């Protein structure tokens, strides 16, 4: 019998997400091992990166709301939005997040907050204007799935390594530019007779620079991939929650089609939100539905998944 309960887990998606996570962990282990082998001088970098990420994690709701210009609304101010979220939360048995509206014509929605208890779901006025009520509900179900999956926490942890690598790269470039390689950090500039040691320091620094650039690139790609898989997972959970995958599909088509037609000024104004962060991998402290960032899977991919779900649910018993 085809029932909501019997929809199987997407093994492929699970496997891909697991592999990506595993690769990130392996990369992380390798980098920590390398740091320990080189010396503990980069402990400071780890502390700085950790602190930055902690701030981002802890204040994710405020940062994202500020970046998008969202404001928290009461049930009286937005009865329809609150009503839809109330019902979805009751169906999913989850705590109701705070509800916010961002006053921009870019059709978008995002969920943010470090835990389901401090979560905020925000929709833009552009989104609410373009979508009809079932479509808006489908988008909200997608965002609530992000809350339930704790995607802000997951992506914050996942992007830690990229942040460290990015910091190391910048530090190396700075010191390299200011003191010349080997002069600033290597300390080889003292004795003329110690030329050999100076060369070695240059080599070590070059190696660290290369390694951190490579680590940055790999972890960037991995976090992007992880983010895309989490989007697909949220599409899936959201569609199962409302029981109507095609409605989410039509919302995606509407929103994506609109984004392509939006004037550049609006696109740039969303990019400031993107540039607000250190690495693009964690650019979205909230996880949004639009497909303009590569953190999101392609529209075709998302539509294909939803079509498969629709077929799964529609099969007569």
């Amino acid at each position, binding site marked *: *019998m*085809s*029932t*909501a*309960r*019997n929809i199987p*887990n997407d093994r492929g998606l*699970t496997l891909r*997400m*697991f592999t990506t*996570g595993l690769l990130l962990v392996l990369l992380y282990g390798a980098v920590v091992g390398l740091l320990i082998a080189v010396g503990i001088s980069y402990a400071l970098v780890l502390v700085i990166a950790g602190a930055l990420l902690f701030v981002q994690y802890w204040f994710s709701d405020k940062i994202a709301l500020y970046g998008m210009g969202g404001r928290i609304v009461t*049930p*009286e101010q937005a*009865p*329809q939005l*609150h*009503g*839809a979220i*109330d*019902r979805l*939360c*009751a*169906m*999913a*048995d989850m*705590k*109701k997040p705070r509800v916010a509206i961002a006053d921009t014509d870019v059709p978008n929605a995002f969920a943010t907050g470090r835990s389901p208890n401090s979560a905020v779901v925000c929709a833009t006025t552009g989104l609410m204007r373009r979508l009809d*009520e*079932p479509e808006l*509900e489908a988008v909200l179900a997608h965002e609530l*799935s992000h809350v*339930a*999956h*704790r*995607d802000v926490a*997951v992506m914050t942890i996942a992007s830690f390594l990229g942040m460290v690598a990015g910091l190391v790269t910048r530090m190396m470039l700075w010191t390299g530019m200011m003191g010349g390689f080997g002069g600033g950090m290597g300390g080889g500039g003292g004795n003329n007779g110690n030329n050999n040691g100076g060369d070695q320091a240059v080599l070590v620094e070059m190696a660290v620079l290369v390694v951190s650039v490579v680590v940055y690139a790999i972890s960037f790609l991995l976090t992007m991939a992880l983010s895309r*898989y*989490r989007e697909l*997972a*949220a599409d899936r*959970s959201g569609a*199962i*929650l*409302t*029981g*109507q*995958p*095609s409605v989410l599909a039509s919302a995606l088509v509407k929103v994506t089609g609109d984004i392509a037609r939006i004037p550049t000024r609006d696109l740039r104004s969303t990019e400031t939100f993107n540039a607000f962060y250190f690495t693009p991998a964690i650019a979205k402290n909230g996880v949004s539905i639009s497909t303009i960032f590569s953190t999101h899977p392609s529209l075709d991919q998302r539509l294909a998944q939803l079509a498969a779900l*629709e077929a799964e*649910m*529609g*099969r*007569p*018993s």
Partner: protein
Amino acid sequence: MGLFDTILGRTKPVQSNLDALFALPSASITLQSAAGMACSGHAGVCFKPPTGQGFADMESEVVTLLSMDGGSGLTRSEDSFGYTWLVVEDPDIGSLVTRVHLVNSSLSDSGWGPQLLCSVFGLAKLTTDPTVAAGSDPVEEGATVGAGTLLPSTAFLVYLFKRGTFYPFVPTGHEQRSTEEEFRLRSLVADDLTVEADLDRWFPLWDLPVG
């Protein structure tokens, strides 16, 4: 949700808890003696209809089953949020609960439990003045449980399937509710029913199709 599900980005659809419904008749007796209120004979089941013919077939089966069951009313409507309401009417609180349970269990037995949102039971102030009650069908007089007749509902008890809890809802006008009255009802039924402790989950249901 476990850690593993978090890492893999999965949520499991939440199943419904139906047993708590049968505590309603005793709550109705308590309400009648303590506040002169009783079940009004109206109740509604609210669910999100999923896509596909499987659910539609099942729903029409339930409707047929309920209409065969006895002459009392059954109406189907859709609200502005895209949820379907099956509203049953039965002056006897016992059989009202049984009928509501029939709808709920049919849905959850065929695997659609996750689609259930809530059930709503109407409450009405009992009046000793017979002329007021005369407007509705003259059902048998002197019933001990419930109003014994259909009355327009003034307050509601909402049953949340996923929590297995009840909360009172008293709408007073256009998108306004009487929190005071709701708290009073809560203290009255607290011994008989599991009342939802998290006030955030007492969401309003404006324009209820339940009479």
